[in-house]
């Protein structure tokens, strides 16, 4: 990939470092231990945590945020456990996802999950049908109410972001 200096966004790394979890980005000395530890990388060569970190440090904002790669991290924490520089990579990946969402790039599977959470306060609906099934095998029925607390959190923290970016 050729890098065009004028396309680089010098503020991008600071934007990531301001997100919770992104604080330790600049500690990376590019050893590649994370990439060698990553199970997703073993399946798909194109997924490469060290490279995502380099690109972020260089300011390749568009390339990082538009790619689907940031969403491919399973959060298994293997890289984070082995990183000699304590970059806290898994948390950093999450911070990059949070920035991507603020910039309008959200993976559709998350939009769907947030929708479910807003409707049921759970990922899956528990209604009368599910409760009957539960009781039949001897499990107690669960409270089915949609909680206003959860609707409010999603309205305050998430809905605005999903509608098309903050700031």
């Amino acid at each position, binding site marked *: 990939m050729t890098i065009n200096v004028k396309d680089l966004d010098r503020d991008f790394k600071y934007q990531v470092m301001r*997100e*919770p*979890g992104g604080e330790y980005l600049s500690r990376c000395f590019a050893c590649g231990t994370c990439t060698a530890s990553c*199970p*997703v990388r073993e*399946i*798909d060569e194109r997924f490469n945590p060290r490279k995502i970190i380099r690109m972020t440090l260089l300011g390749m904002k568009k390339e990082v945020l538009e790619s*689907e790669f940031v*969403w*491919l*991290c*399973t*959060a*298994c*924490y*293997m890289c*984070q*456990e082995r990183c000699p520089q304590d970059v*806290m990579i*898994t948390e950093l990946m*999450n*911070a990059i*996802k*949070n920035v991507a*969402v603020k910039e309008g790039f*959200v*993976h559709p*599977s*998350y939009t*769907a*999950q*947030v929708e479910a*959470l807003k409707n049921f*306060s*759970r*990922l*899956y609906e*528990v209604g009368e049908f*599910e409760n009957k*099934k*539960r009781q039949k*095998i*001897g*499990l*107690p029925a*669960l*409270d089915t109410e949609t*909680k*206003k*607390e*959860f609707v*409010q*959190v*999603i309205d*305050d*923290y*998430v809905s605005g*972001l*999903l509608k098309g970016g903050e700031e």
Partner: protein
Amino acid sequence: MKYAFFLGCTVPVRAQNYELSARKVAEKLGIELVDVPDFRCCGYPVKSVNFKGHLVMSAINLALAEKQGLNITTLCNACSVTMIEANEELKAHPDFLEEVNGELSKFGLEYKGTVEVKHFARVLYEDYGLDKLKEHITRPLEGYRFAPHYGCHFIRPSKVYAEFDDPQYPVSLDRLVEITGAEAVDYPEKQLCCGGGILGIKEEVALALSNKKLGIVKEKNADGMISICPFCSVMYEGNQKKIEKTYEKEYGIPVLYYTQILGLSMGFSSEEMGLKLNRIKPRALMEAFSNG
């Protein structure tokens, strides 16, 4: 011994065999699991979208437990790690706690930071203890061999689990399996992730990850895999047929929840432990431990 019982979203609809066996085992051991009707999602799915939003969701649940003066126990690795991490974040960052409490106050809730969150398997291992557990094993599962799958979020990140188990070479679940009288089968890449976290993002990569471990376990010829997380079971058990088809393999590996085999070794029947709800039928166990 008494805990607020956090079921989360997945267990009550997709892992009823897990819930059933955990409740029965706990009762027999004298561990009281208190249902808290207002508990909802732990916040895990929101973390990738907005970190602070996920903190608030975790904190709602933490505050509800605090109100009752109870610590939380969960059956799901993802619920555990989410609430444990949120709890640590809130304790480490007074400004986060203040913001979160500003949100909670809209609903008459407040979180002071006094609750502890522990996976049920860890409660058995640590709080109840292996010695006491052993006294309840009336029917050791001699001759059975099970491959334990810890799942990432039971032992990682070490940042929050350092006092519990080794993040790369853990032993706790092996010991718990051995307590039942069965053999805990050792195998390479025991720490490998199931891929569950990206099933909805990129199915083929997620399934490839699960396929890898199923292949390793198959070679060890175990009687089954032992899981303590509903997501891991969805991957290894719920998707096993699909994986077999995709990769032209024949596995047929039963995946049991730890509480199911523990219950069998404590004298419960396979019916009581919900074995017939398992998608890949553990036939040998079902026949050996049937009550009818």
